């Protein structure tokens, strides 16, 4: 039992690594994607839209397989499995985050931009000091949803052979002829997400000083 928990903790560390690295890269990448999607250049915005449609319209599991195996067919070799998982997750989540950002930016009343303009703010200042802080507040609930989903999606990394928490639990389950390890894994995911939800609740509360 002790051995099992130890293995599951190791698996959890892999899951958390996937989680953290995905956020680290997809949160900023999503901003670029959102910027492209809102671009006045129709070629760029359509191209970005196609990217978003593919990322949101096909299963993440398929995207992971594609990201890992496509280079074999094209170049004859691929990067290591873990890198492939990160690449797959990042490009998928960036698409979702981009749409959340876009929704947030477009929900800012035009009056906020007009007031900024009349007061002589530069475009950058308007974005960083007027728009962005208000967007952050508005998108927190949607981001919370997405980040919670990410915790659970890390289980898909096993499709290309990365031994994360769920894979470890399944292996243990097979060895012990028992479903117990899988249920324990469920508790692990639940606890991780309890931390995530709590963090988002706190953040929401912190930004509650204005409507």
């Amino acid at each position, binding site marked *: 039992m002790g051995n099992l928990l130890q293995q599951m903790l190791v698996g959890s560390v892999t899951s958390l690594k996937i989680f953290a690295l995905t956020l680290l890269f997809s949160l900023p990448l999503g901003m670029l994607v959102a910027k492209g999607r809102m671009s006045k250049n129709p070629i760029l915005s359509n191209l970005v839209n196609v990217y978003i449609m593919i990322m949101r319209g096909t299963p993440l599991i398929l995207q992971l397989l594609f990201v890992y195996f496509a280079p074999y067919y094209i170049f004859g070799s691929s990067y290591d499995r873990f890198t492939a998982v990160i690449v797959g997750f990042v490009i998928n989540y960036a698409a979702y985050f981009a749409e959340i950002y876009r929704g947030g930016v477009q929900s800012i009343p035009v009056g906020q931009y007009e007031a900024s303009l*009349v007061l002589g703010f530069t475009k950058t200042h308007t974005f960083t000091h007027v728009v962005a802080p208000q967007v952050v507040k508005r998108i927190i609930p949607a981001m919370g949803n997405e980040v919670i989903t990410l915790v659970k999606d890390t289980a898909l990394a096993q499709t290309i052979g990365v031994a994360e928490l769920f894979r470890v639990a399944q292996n243990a389950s097979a060895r012990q002829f028992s479903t117990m390890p899988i249920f324990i894994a469920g508790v692990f995911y639940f606890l991780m997400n309890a931390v995530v939800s709590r963090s988002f609740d706190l953040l929401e509360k912190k930004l509650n000083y204005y409507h």
Partner: protein
Amino acid sequence: MEIVSVTDLKKEFDGLGVLKGISFSLNKGEVLSIIGPSGSGKSTLLRCLTQLEPVDGGSIVVNSKTMVTTTEEGKVRYADKQTLKDVRLSLGLVFQSFNLFTHMSVLRNITEAQMHVLGRSKSEAQQVAKELLRKMGLEEKEKAYPCQLSGGQQQRVSIARALALNPAVLCFDEPTSALDPELTAEILKVIKDLAKEKMTMIVVTHEMAFARDISDRVIFMDDGLIVEEGSPEKVFGDPQSPRTKRFLNRYEQD
């Protein structure tokens, strides 16, 4: 001294003429009211003046700086960036819906542009802001957020925010249209006090009695044109155009 001069200003939305050749000028210390029915182009005129809308023809000169001109061939030429910025800062605008920055405290709403645009120090900006808040009767509200204020208080903050940049002209775009009669009176008093201090102002308003009371000059607009212009006594007391008469009659009936 002429501080704003607008000549043959034209603006179209999707081929539909909203301003069809507006010319007027404003002298320092003068209060000009613009009245007229909804859709007559009053607000669009202010928005063109404050660079929120690009013009389609005509010229605007503010503080002897040419903001925009139109060549004989009808090509609209805006001034360089720096001139546009100077002109922008010499015209303050108070919006109908206040447009305060909802995530900033009252004090920061008023200091932000002073620090970022005029380069004033934080302490100087705060001093200016506090002085203006005192003038607006809101000295205890500096730490409040806009959502905690009444509409009238929000509008007073937005007036303070515009005044903090020392504009040569303060423009009001229907500043009381979003307020109930009590709060309206509150804002009208603030504008009246500014008029007493000889602040140069352009006020787009539906408050006829107020326009009559504070203005040095009144412009009546209809369908993108200036129909009548003159002293309040003349425009309200003895309107020449049948269109103006009809419009003012409506108000007197109320």
